[in-house]
């Protein structure tokens, strides 16, 4: 039991560092440049029932200390994920992985979760009810406590694996949504997904993104994510996975002090492919400097 170990919904992680969904593909690109078994785990690309191309390009725009993206849940669909991606993943990653699930209807969430529940490689189901970039989908479930509760209940009914609901920051009170999920049986919540944003090209006078709006991520959102993690950790008893702009070992510690049981790293993977490996390597020395013996001791230290 190392000093970096944490528990995530009953499954022990070697460390709390988790690449977040949509920034790590299905792991292969990163497995080519470092041994991804150093990670606590990772959350794979948001998966839907059918294959999706996603939004028209451009899908990414620059912004101060961050970027705005509107990929729109491009993924090969749950069949290919189970038949092609997971077998490939088995060769380079030997820990339980977080299966990130998206849907456009209650039935779709249920169908995809039911399928992934049968996969031994899957440790947790992370149910994305917060994608700001697909119309009529994702986010609508994440901005209404009743809808969030409905999805949670339905998904819990078809899986024995821990269910983590991924929440949207684009709400008046995220604790309401988190509590609705908890009351409906969620084993954990992860937050924040991206903050709805946009950019305009002042030369062409048109929105930069093909989807017009997108989601802001990167360092810029860190203080907002930290606040929401803090509020949510105070409001619920289930584990909170903190994400949003985390880019360094210091950020991981700050996020955990705000109440996160584990921390996801998102956009930072895209500009520094080694960031998660580096964070994991930096943590012990930083903990020494801060007088932290075991990282789990500081979860919620600032609450």
């Amino acid at each position, binding site marked *: 039991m190392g000093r970096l170990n944490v528990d995530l919904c009953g499954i022990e992680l070697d460390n709390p560092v988790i690449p977040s969904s*949509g*920034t*790590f*593909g299905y792991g292969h*690109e*990163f497995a*080519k*440049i470092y041994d991804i078994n150093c990670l606590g785990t990772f959350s794979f*690309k948001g998966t839907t029932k059918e294959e999706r*191309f*996603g939004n*028209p*390009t*451009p*899908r*990414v*725009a*620059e*912004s*101060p*200390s*961050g*970027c705005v*993206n509107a*990929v729109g849940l*491009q993924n090969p669909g749950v069949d290919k994920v189970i038949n092609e991606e997971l077998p490939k993943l088995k060769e380079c990653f030997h820990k339980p992985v977080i299966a990130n699930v998206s849907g456009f209807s209650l039935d779709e969430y249920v169908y995809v979760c039911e399928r992934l529940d049968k996969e031994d490689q899957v440790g947790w189901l992370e149910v994305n009810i917060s994608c700001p970039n697909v119309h009529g989908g994702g986010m609508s479930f994440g901005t209404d406590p009743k809808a969030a509760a409905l999805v949670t209940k339905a998904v819990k009914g078809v899986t024995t694996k821990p269910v983590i609901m991924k929440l949207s920051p684009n709400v008046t009170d995220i604790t309401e949504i988190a509590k609705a999920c908890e009351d409906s049986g969620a084993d954990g919540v992860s937050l924040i997904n991206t903050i709805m944003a946009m950019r305009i090209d002042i030369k062409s006078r048109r929105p930069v993104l093909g989807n017009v709006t997108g989601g802001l991520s*990167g*360092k810029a959102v860190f203080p907002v994510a930290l606040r929401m993690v803090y509020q949510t950790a105070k409001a619920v008893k289930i584990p909170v996975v903190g994400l949003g702009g985390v880019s360094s070992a210091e950020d991981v510690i700050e996020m955990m002090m705000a109440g996160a049981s584990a921390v996801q790293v998102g*956009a930072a*993977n*895209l*500009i*520094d*492919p*080694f960031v998660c490996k580096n964070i994991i390597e930096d943590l012990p020395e930083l903990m020494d400097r801060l007088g932290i013996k075991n990282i789990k001791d500081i979860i919620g230290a600032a609450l």
Partner: protein
Amino acid sequence: MEQVLLKVIENKALAPTVFRMKLEGSTKAITAPGQFVNIKLDGLYLRRPISVCDLEKNVLTIIYKVVGEGTEQMSKMKAGAVLDVLTGLGNGYDTALSGDRPLLLGGGVGVPPLYLLAKKLLPEGKKVTAVLGFNTKDEVFYENEFKALGAVTIITTADGSYGKRGFVTDALDGIGYTHFYTCGPEPMLKAVYRATKTSGQFSFERRMGCGFGACMGCSCKTITGYKRICKEGPVLMKEEILWED
């Protein structure tokens, strides 16, 4: 892919807004012409992808046009500056398909990747013809460099101020070729697509997130399925291209 620190050893203007930068350091991840590098710049979040123009032992050459904040910042860099760069990105051109008379069609800052390609093809005894298109005389660069390699080099300018008047596709009559390689602005690529008779390889430019296949930011549809310009691209075969209108 490799993440390396590269030292700027030259950064000079080739044309009013076009610069050549030579970077010193490990280049071992770069395995084919047409690949690109992705450069981290101060104060900007996303890296900036730029195709590789030339490669010598431990020296990498890129040619870039000042189009925004990132390239603006690069144009001001002095020798000695150190850059955090991801190298060896993308699939690059397949030289095995060239046949004995490959045709290279470049437009503006689409010309640079063709230089390294020519440098690979010529020693293999291929008869390389390079048609390089620019808007106007002031913007022409690398004509002599291509000639020095031994490529038959034809320059076109849209305004006729230098070389042949018109676009690269207006200079194809009478040129025999076994295969073609092209890189340039999308309208030119579409014209090349229509004007060429053999198979060929197109290098595409896209706004990218990561540049190494993680974020799906630069996906496109092809006849052979969805592809990531940064990973299964930037080079696509003529036969698989689906123009988004």
